[in-house]
Each structure stands twice: as C-alpha cells, then as structure tokens.
C-alpha cells in the first residue's frame, strides 16, 4: 500500500472535541474502532455519543447493537445528556436489542451470520453510515471456543469493511491498564481493527480519575499520551490532546490595572494584557484581596470577568471583599462578573480545568481569577496538576485572557520562594505576599519577584488593608532592618520631628539672610543717593565756574566796549575754551 493512501485516510468525527483532537480528526471512516475498558469506564456512553453526534451533526444515521444492556435503559440513561434520542430514533437512530436471553439454552456452535443479515436490512432501510456493537464480548463469550470466537470476529470485521460502515466495537477489559487483553480473541480484535483505544478509571486518593488512551491508529498519527475525560452533563468530555496548543499568541504591550494604583506603578503601569499573574503567599496574606481588586478593576473597565474560588462561596467572597471596599456585587448583578465556587472538593484537576474553560467561554471572560490555583493539587491530583495548570495558562494565553491566580505556599519562610506547582515558571508576573513578624506585630509585605518584559520595582512594600481599600506603603529601612507597622510609624514620627527641627533652623537662617539682604540693599540705596548728591554738587560747581568765567568775559567785553575796541571777534576767541 502506498503512503498516499495512508495520507488520505478518511476520518469520521465523533463530535467529542477532545477525542477528535487526539485522533487528529476522528475515527477511521468505513473501518472499525475498538474501545475497551473495564466495567463502568464509560464505553457505552462514549460509543453512543459518537453515534448520536454522527446523526445530529453529520446527518449520518446509525445503528446501536446492544449486547449487554437493554436499549430502553441505555436510552433512559442517556436522556440526562439532552441528546434528544426520541426524535433521532424516528429516522436516524436504531437500537437493536441483541441481549442473549437469560434462559438461553445452547447446543453447539452458532454464528453472527443471522444477526448481520438482520442488521443489513436495517442498514439499507435507514441508510446507516455508522454502527456500534456494544459489549461484543458478551456474545463472543457464549461461543466458548477460541477458534469460533476468532471466526466470528473475522466475519464481523469483513462484513463491516464490505459495507463501508464506520464502526465502534466495545469490549470489556480486565486486569492492568494498557496491557493487552489476556484473552486471545479480544486481542485478535485489537490487532484487526484500525483504531483502538482504552478507557480507564481509577481511584486516586478517593477521587475518580478517568482517562482515555488511543493505543493504535493505522495510517494516522495520534496523541499518544492518555487524556483525562469526564462524564458530565452533556456526556463524555475528553480533555483532548494534552499537547500545548503552540498557537501564536497576540502579544500586546497594553497594560491593565491590578486594581491597586501603587502596584501598577511598581509594575510600570499594571499587568500586561493577556499575562498570567501569580500571587503567592501564606494563608491570610491578602491574596484573595489582591485577586478581588483585579476583578473589580476589570469590571470597572467593563471587561467580562470570571472569578473562580476554591475557598469560598460567591456570597462570602462578595461580603469579605466589601470589607476592604472592593464592591463586586454591583458587577455580579449586571452579569459583568461571574463568581463561581469550585469548592466541590472531590473532583479531578482535569475536571476543574474543563469546567473553568467551559465557564470562561460561557462568560466570554476577558479576565479570569482563580483563587487559589493550588487547590487543584488537592485530593490525589498532585501528579497531574502541573500539566493542568500549564495547559490552563497556555489556553488562557491563546485566548488573550488576563489571568490572576493565587497560590498557597507551603512554606512560611519567604526565602523558599517556590510554588508547590512550580507554576512560577509559567507565570509572567509573580507577586509574593508575606508576613513580617517584628516587635509583636505581623505585617503584610508585598514584593514583585518577577515580571517578564517590564521594569518593576525592587522595593518591598507594606500592604495595608482598611475599609478604604488596599494601600501599599514604603517600608522603613533603618540600619539594614525593614520596619513595618507601628515600628515604621514610630520611625516615621521620629523622622518627622527631626525634620521639623531642621526646617525651623533653615527658616531662621533664611530670615537672617533676608535681613542681611534688606540691610545691604538699604545701604546700597543710601550710597547711591550720596553719589547722586555728590554729582549734583559737582555739576553745580562746574556750572558756577562757567558762569563765573562768562561773567568775566562779559565784563571784559563791556569794558572793552566802553573802551571802544572791536568787541565781537575778541569775545568769541575768548569764550571758546
């Protein structure tokens, strides 16, 4: 077979998003897919859901052959998922009750030929494209002969291929997860089909962790890691390929307010839009308050926000935050903010992630708060939490949602600044809140440990909560010691007094100088006046001299005139100096 044929393998969407993601587009069209799993692992629901989706979304009628359960009961169970089976059953969906009767007497070997002939009629009638054989092992088990079982598996497989039906065959599996079925015929089925997956559910510290794994897929790549899934309100939801999306993220340098003006300044303008912010700290260090401030600021900007709390009920969050003047109720009423309690402890981290994602989509959230994200690692979830948080961060980023999540630190010592989930490496901005206990006081301190791509203050600030809100105050460092609270206040008062003394002294000096200035200016003025007087005196003197001279000449001329001499010419010569 050429690679071209493999490359062009046709796929058939199951409509279960995560599963189609893992199989890179769905199960092989016109071929058989095997789903194996232990009792209660969700095989029937998964198979039926795929069939229903085929009928609803792709208009491909389907047949469900039930070997183990009464079809009516299967339909009744599925009614809670809202698939509207009743409407589908009229034209697009047919349930075949193929349960062997309990009082069945067997004598010798039998085969599936009759059943396939019967189904064939129905396939033609409906124009069916998909088919499910649920719990094939039940009927194979009746044969009680490995050779006969193999023969019937072969018969079924050939029949499916000839008709080009996309089939799902489910079988029970016992024993270890992921191991080959011990019974030869079942393992033969696994070799025969083009696609095989296992469903698994196990209890980890009392929490049910369901997972799905694609074992093989002929002619196609697939996500090889197992993926968690859940049976929720709409049926099976598969977390999907656990690979990171790797989607290009729209990077922006737009800033959004943290809700605390001083913190915005410290961060050089606020958080980046689309960034993931981590707030760590011991219990009571006001992590939730900081989260609340962000949510409020987001709502004030009219951005739709989702607040997921693992600690409190929505009403409690609203009440508690109102005490520090963060009023969320007004936004909640307007639908701008959605507060959700995720306190239902005993569910897996995957389920939480899927729920948060669904809620965020529903809310069309631009801002997301998770308080605290470390709760995800509770209840036996710790091994997978890191991956969950990683994918959460990845998803949030790809959606351009700004996320603030808090995380509890196990250690109270601020030197050991590592988060239990190691999500600090994923977060873009990491704010650490701690207590400083000194002189009988416990004060909150805020530090920005990192903030990618932005200048940020290296200063430790004291975080103060009051009914006016959050304020960040400079801490007082004296002699290499950080002072907060009353100590800071005392030092500030002392400083103030010292400053007062200095101020008074300088005021006095200023006055002295002023006086000197006034004095000198006065003296300057007096001298100027004196100068003026002297000049005037000099002028007077000069003038009178001229007068005196001219008077002399005049008198001489007069004299000369009287004597009858040639007065004019002589006068001129005389006057000219």
């Amino acid at each position, binding site marked *: 077979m050429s690679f071209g044929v493999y490359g062009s393998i046709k796929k058939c969407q199951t409509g279960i998003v995560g599963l189609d993601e893992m199989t890179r587009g769905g199960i092989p069209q016109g071929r058989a897919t095997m789903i194996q799993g232990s009792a209660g692992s969700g095989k029937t629901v998964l198979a039926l859901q795929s069939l229903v989706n085929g009928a609803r979304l792709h208009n491909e009628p389907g047949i469900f052959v039930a070997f183990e359960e009464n079809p009516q009961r299967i339909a009744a169970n599925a009614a809670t998922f809202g698939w509207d089976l009743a409407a589908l059953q009229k034209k697009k969906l047919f349930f075949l009750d193929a349960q062997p009767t309990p009082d069945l007497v*067997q004598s010798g070997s039998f*085969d599936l030929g*009759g059943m396939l*002939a019967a189904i064939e009629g129905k396939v033609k009638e409906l124009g069916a494209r998909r088919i499910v054989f649920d719990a094939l092992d039940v009927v194979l088990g009746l044969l009680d002969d490995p050779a006969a079982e193999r023969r019937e598996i072969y018969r079924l497989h050939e029949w499916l291929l000839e008709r080009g039906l996309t089939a799902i065959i489910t079988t029970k599996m016992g024993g270890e997860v992921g191991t080959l079925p011990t019974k030869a015929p079942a393992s033969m089925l696994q070799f025969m089909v083009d696609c095989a997956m296992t469903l698994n559910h196990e209890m980890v510290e009392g929490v049910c962790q369901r997972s799905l794994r694609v074992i093989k897929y002929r002619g196609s790549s697939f996500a090889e890691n197992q993926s968690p899934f859940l049976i929720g309100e709409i049926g099976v939801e598969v977390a999907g390929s656990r690979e990171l999306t790797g989607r290009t993220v729209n990077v922006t340098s737009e800033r959004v307010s943290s809700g605390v003006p001083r913190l915005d300044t410290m961060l050089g303008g606020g958080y980046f839009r689309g960034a993931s912010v981590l707030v760590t700290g011991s219990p009571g260090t006001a992590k939730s308050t900081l989260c609340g401030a962000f949510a409020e600021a987001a709502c004030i900007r009219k951005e739709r926000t989702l607040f997921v709390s693992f600690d409190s009920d929505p009403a409690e969050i609203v009440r508690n935050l109102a005490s520090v003047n963060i009023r969320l109720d007004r936004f909640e009423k307007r639908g701008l903010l959605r507060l959700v309690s995720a306190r239902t402890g005993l569910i897996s981290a995957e389920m939480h992630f899927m729920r948060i994602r669904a809620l965020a989509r529903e809310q069309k959230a631009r801002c997301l708060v998770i308080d605290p994200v470390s709760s995800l690692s509770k209840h036996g979830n710790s091994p997978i939490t890191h991956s969950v948080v990683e994918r959460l961060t990845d998803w949030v980023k790809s959606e351009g949602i700004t996320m603030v999540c808090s995380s509890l630190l196990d250690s109270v010592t601020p030197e050991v600044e590592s988060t239990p989930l190691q999500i600090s490496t994923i977060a873009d901005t990491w704010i650490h809140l701690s207590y400083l206990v000194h002189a009988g006081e416990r004060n909150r301190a805020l530090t920005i440990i990192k903030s990618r791509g932005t200048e940020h203050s290296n200063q430790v600030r004291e975080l103060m909560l009051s009914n006016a809100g959050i304020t960040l105050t400079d801490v007082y460092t004296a002699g290499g010691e950080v002072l907060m609270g009353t100590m800071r206040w005392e030092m500030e008062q002392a400083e103030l007094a010292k400053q007062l003394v200095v101020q008074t002294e300088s005021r006095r000096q200023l006055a002295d100088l002023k006086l000197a200035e006034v004095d000198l200016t006065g003296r300057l003025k007096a001298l100027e006046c004196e100068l003026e007087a002297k000049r005037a005196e000099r002028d007077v003197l000069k003038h009178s001299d001229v007068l005196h001279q001219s008077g002399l000449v005049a008198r001489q001329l007069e004299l000369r005139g009287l004597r009858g001499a040639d007065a004019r010419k002589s006068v001129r010569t005389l006057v000219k100096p």
Partner: protein
Amino acid sequence: MSQTPAIYRFRLYVAGEGPNSLQARANLHALCSEHLPDRHQIEIVDVVREPRRALEDNVLLTPTLVKLSPEPVRKVIGNLSQTPAILQAFDLRPASQ
C-alpha cells in the same frame, strides 16, 4: 398412555447456507425422526432472505431453534450438535429409556 402425544412445532432460524445452519438443519431432522417420529412440524426461516423477520422475532444469533408448542416456548441456539441439552430443554426423554 391414553393421552394423544402432543405435536411438537419447531421453527429454525438459519443464515443461508452457512456451515452451522446446514448442521442445525441436519441435526434437527435427525433428532425429530429419532425422538418425535410423526409428531413434529418444522418451519425454516432464512434470515438472510427475511431479515425483517429476525428483527421482529428478536432472533439474532443463528442458528436458533424455537419450540413453539407445546408450551412453554423455548429457545436453543447453536448447531444442535449436543442432543442431551436439547432434550432437557424440551422436556424430552432420551429414546433409550
């Protein structure tokens, strides 16, 4: 002894000419001639030709033998190679006794 022995009415569902189906037919005829001579009726339903009938009668595994009368109605699946099981199911005594 005075009672007239009941007539056994059988319906055998087969799938075409498959080996099991052929064997079942042969086995049923042999069984009837041995244990129920002259008091049996056999109807053969080929589900390949009449798939609807298989669905309506809810007979999917082939071959299936249904004893319609006398009451109660009983079903036996398989190629009828194990005679004792059938006799027991149909309340018949082995001929040797």
